[in-house]
Every structure is written in structure tokens, then in C-alpha cells.
């Protein structure tokens, strides 16, 4: 058992999140997938902090959380307003910007 396993787990979670962004159509689920990717990165940061014996990684993880919180607030508000005007939460339906 080594801390490397944490990194492996983080890599898998990140990949799952990325694939989720690609395959899910519900905007909120897509958003949750992004959160999963952020969390995976956070796990990496925490693991690196521990490997280096240094708290800077944890501070960085803290900032990531703050930014994620702000992003979630704005992103959900955008999803809400899109839903109000277009009556849909599917990312495939907002496809006006095309050829």
C-alpha cells in the first residue's frame, strides 16, 4: 500500500468524470461530472501534499473548492435561466450556434 494508489484512484475518477461529460445530456449531470473531475484533482493535491510533506497542496485544494463553489453557483443559475427560456435542461437542445 503506497500513496500512489491515491493517485491511481484520482486518475480513474477524473477519467470517469471526463467520459461522463461526454456521454450525459442532462446539463446538471454534466455539471456534476465536472465536479467529480475537480474532486479527483483535489485528491491528487492532497496526496501530493502528503508526499512532499508540505501543506501548500492542501491550501491549493482549498482554493479549488472555493472556485468550484463559485462556479457551481453561476453555472446552476445559467442552467436555470436557460431552462426558463427554452424549457429544457439538455445540452443537445441548445445547439443554435452552428453552421
Amino acid at each position: 500500500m503506497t500513496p500512489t494508489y491515491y493517485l491511481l484512484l484520482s486518475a480513474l475518477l477524473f477519467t470517469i468524470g471526463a467520459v461522463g461529460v461526454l456521454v450525459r445530456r442532462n446539463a446538471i449531470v454534466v455539471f456534476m461530472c465536472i465536479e467529480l473531475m475537480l474532486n479527483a484533482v483535489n485528491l491528487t493535491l492532497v496526496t501530493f501534499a502528503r508526499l512532499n510533506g508540505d501543506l501548500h497542496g492542501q491550501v491549493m485544494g482549498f482554493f479549488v473548492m472555493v472556485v468550484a463553489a463559485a462556479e457551481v453557483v453561476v453555472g446552476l443559475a445559467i442552467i436555470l435561466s436557460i431552462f426558463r427560456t427554452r424549457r429544457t435542461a439538455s445540452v443537445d437542445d441548445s445547439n443554435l450556434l452552428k453552421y
Partner: protein
Amino acid sequence: MTTTLAEGVVDASGAASAAWLLLALPALGAAVLLIGGRRTDKWGHLLGSGTVIAAFALAVVTFFGTDFAQQHNLHLWDWISVNQLVIDFGLRIDALSITFVLLITGVGSLIHIYSIGYMNHELRDRRRFFAYLNLFVSAMLLLVLGNSFVTLYFGWEGVGLASYLLIGWYQGKDFAATAAKKAFLMNRVGDVGLALAIFLMFKNFGSTQYTEVFAAVGDAPTGLIVAIGLLLLLGACGKSGQFPLQAWLPDAMAGPTPVSALIHAATMVTAGVYLIARSSPIYSLPQAADARLVVMIIGAVTILIGCVIGCAYDDFKKVLAYSTVSQIGYMILAVGLGPAGYAFGILHLITHGFFKAGLFLGAGSVMHAMNDEGDIRRLGGLWKKMPITFWTWTLGYLALIGFPFLSGFFSKDEIINAALGQEGPRGWIFGGVALLGAGLTAFYMTRLLILVFLGKARWTGLKSADGKDYHPHESPTTMTVPMIILAVGSVAGGFILSMVLPDFLVPAIGEVQETHGALSHTMVGILAVAISAIGAGIAYLIFGRSEQPVERPQRVTFAVRAARADLFGNHLNEALFARPGTWLTRALVYVDNRGVDGLVNGIAAGLGGSSGRLRRTQTGFVRSYALSMLGGSILVVAALLVVRFA
């Protein structure tokens, strides 16, 4: 002989230094009338005539106030200066140019005065007409006064423009517009020759000034001289209606009659003769013998063409036009003879300017009185109704056919004599053609006289094209006075001019080379008069003794039909140039459409098509964009790893 040209050139002084006014006055008149527009309607014709009369007065003053033993060069300003190409805008006042200036302004003044009366049907546009006439006079004066081939070319194109505008004067009529276009295009053919000749001169002699070119030609190789000579001849053919570019001149009669008289009989069409006479130092060179021969052939061919077609036409002005063509053929033949003929060519040009202008003005007077009827079969017996016109016209007629001691007699006989004086068979051929031409001229002119003025009045009971009866009447004074003056000139001019002109022109074009042919001068004169008398007699026998039908006979021999069809000149032009030109254009258009456009459009279509297909990738679906982003990120990361670890 050429030495007189290179030397004896002095800067203009005295009256000659004011020669620029000759050009400036009519140009100013044209500018005022064209810019002034309707405001000048009331007095435009007076201004137009005034400027030309003033120019004439100035020319007379210059003539008497200048010593023409020398040539006067008047430098006005540097005109074109590009690297080596330096062209002054300058005038050259010498015996040759002043002769032309006097002819142009003199006949021009008379025709301006005549036009006041002739154009009084069209008061609203008369002012514009005079503007164009002034423009023409100005350009023509520049043509003859310029001191380089480029200034000559400038004037050359200027008269072409004025001619185009005036032939197409009756803009509303198709035939006038077509005739103007035809004249313009056929003139361009000749102009190309002139332009190429000028290019050759600049290329080989480094200048286009007369003095410098003529000083340099002596050492030039034969090929170059012949090339320049033939190209200049092409220019002359275009402007003077010589074979093979003669077809535009008869059509140019679509313009008003004063225009026909001034531009297409007396002055502009003789520019080709002027060009060759002015270039006499080139043509007189021994290297230029071949070019000279071509000039003579062209002149001789044109004499015959003009005479033969003139016999067949029924249109008053067109007969006169073909007469002009053949008379200019005489002049070209004369100047082609070289030193033996320059002076006589110019002499014939001057006398022809007088009597042909008079004949045209007479024709205009008749048409003015007969509701613009130009078909001679519908005229006849007008001598009682229009006595002044009749008598002045008859004097012009006699002068043209070479009646003894009238002007045509002196000038034409000299040409025939000089032609006969050529060595060997040439003398017989060209002399024979000239004599034959004299007989034919007498024939068709007599036919014209009989059909128009004598015989029965066939117009009684007929109606003109616009449905009116004919009421022939004598023309107003403004028209008759110029006719009378020209008639006097036709009668007396030849005798006086043949005495003084050859000597006067010596400083400009050299001594007259005496020729001694098989026949003596007196014999030639008698022969020419006799042949003319025979021609006139035959015409009287055919047309004078029997009644002529009003409708032109349709069952005629092939010769007459050919002559009526301009000896197939138009057909020839069309078959040789127009149709191949059309085909070429079509082929080029095809190549352009399919080839050039196809290439350009193909590239555009290819780009457009591939863009259209690439556009399909912009689906608007966020997830496909995210997919490509992920793919891109993976590529970048992979690249980084490869760089980092590999």
C-alpha cells in the same frame, strides 16, 4: 534636298510666334460653347464662326509677315517627359504648314458661314454643332502645325474625334450612329499604323521631332525605312479613305453636308496626303523606293475604285464622296511619285479643297431646298429654281473634270504628267490609270450634273420621305456667298497656285524634279482634256438624251451591281476582318468562360464545397465540441510526455 530640312530651322519670331493663337482661338470657341451650354444658344454660331475667321485673318498675317525660306520652330512647353522620352509641345511654321493652315481656316471660315444658314432648322443644337466644328478646326490646325509626329498624332486623333461626333450628328438615326462607329473604327486601324510608325521612330532615332527624325533617317537601314513608310501609309489610308480602308468615307456622308464639305472633302481626309508630304524626307530616300511604289499602287487602285463606284451610285453626296476618294487617290499617287510629285499632290489638294467643298456646299444647298432629298433620280431640272447654286456647282464641276484653265486642269494634269514621266512600264501603267480616272470622273460628274440640274423635273408630283411636297428655292445669302467664293476659287485658284505654289513649297518639301516622259507636257494636257471630253460626252449620250426613271433600274449588268455594292468592299471587310474577328472573340469568350473563369470558379467552388463540408463539423452540440477538446488535450499531453520522457 533633305539638307534644307535639317538646316534653316530657326526659332519663330514676329507673326509666326503668335501661331499658337491659331490653335487657341478655335479651341477656346469650342470650350466656351461646350461648357457654356444652352446659355450660348443665341450667339454660339457667331462665336464659332468668329474664332475661325479670326484664325484665318491671323493666318493671312502670318503668311505675309514671315519669311518662308526658313522653317520656324515655336516651342510652347515640355509636354511629355518620361526618362528618355522627351516630347516638346511645339509648332512648326513653314511653307507646307502655312499652306494647309490657309486652306483649313479659309475653307473653314466659308463653311462656318454656310452652316449658319444650313443649320437654321436646328436652332437648339446649332451651338453644339459649331462647337464640334471649332474643335475640328483646332485639332486639324494642331495636326498640320505640330513639330513632331506625336503632336501630329494628337491632332490626328482630335480630328478623328470631331469627325466621329459630326458624322453621328443625327444621333437618333441608326445609319448615322453606325456610320460614325464605322468611321471611328476604320480610322483606328490606320491609327495603329501611325502609332507603330511613331514607336519605331522613337525606338530607332530616339526622338519624334521632325528635325531630329529627318536628320537621322539618312543612315537608317532599308528595312526600317520601308517599315516606317508602309506604317505611315497605313495611317494615311485610314484617315484619307484609301484602299483598303475606303469604305468608311461614303458612309460618313450621314453627317450634315457642311461637315461632309469641310471634313470629308476639303481638309481632314487630306491629312494622309499631308502626312506623306510631311514625311517626304523619309519617302525620298533611295531606301524607300519600295514604300513609294506601294504608295503609288494604293493611289492608283483607289482612283479606279472611287471612279467606278461613283458611276453607279444614285445618292448625291455618296457620288461626291467616291469622287473625293478617287481625287485623294490622285494626291496619294502624286506624293508617291516622290520629288516629282509632292508639290503637285499638295497643289491638287488645295484646288480640290476648293472645288470639292464648293460641290458639297452645292449639294447641301440642293438638299436643303429639297427636304433633304439626296436621291438624284428624284431631282432634275433644278437649274431654273436655283440659279446661283447651279452656276457655282457647274463651275466646281468643270474645275473637277479638268476643263481647260480651271483649277483641276492645272493640278490634275501635272499629276498625270508626272505619273507618265515615270520610267519604263510604270509610267504607262500609272499614267494610264490616271488618264482613265480622268475620263471616268468626267463621266460620273456629267451624269450627276444632268440628273440633278438639267433634264426634266422628276420631283413634281413626288413626295419626300416625310410626306411633304417639294418646293425648291434658292438658298439664303449665308449659304450662297460661300458657294460663290469657292466657285471663284475653283476657277482662278488653279492658275495662280500652279504658278507660285511649287516654288513656295521648295523650302519645305524640296525642288520639283522635272520629269520627261514619252509625251510632252502639252500633249498630256490635250490628251487629258480629250479623255475627259469623251467621258462627259458618253455621259451626255446615255443620260442627257433619254428620260431617266425615278426608280433605279434593277436589271443591270454584273459590273453595275458590283459598283453599287462598293465593289464588294464592305463584303470583303466583313469576310476578312469582321467575321474572323467575331469568331475570334467568340472563341476567346469561350476560353475565358470555360478556361479562365472555370479555373477561378473551380477554385472558388472547391473551397466553397470543402468549407461547406467542413462546416458540417460545427454541429452546435456542446458534447461533440467537448469530445474534440478532450481529444486535443490528450494529444497535447501525449506530446508533452513524449518530449519529456522519450
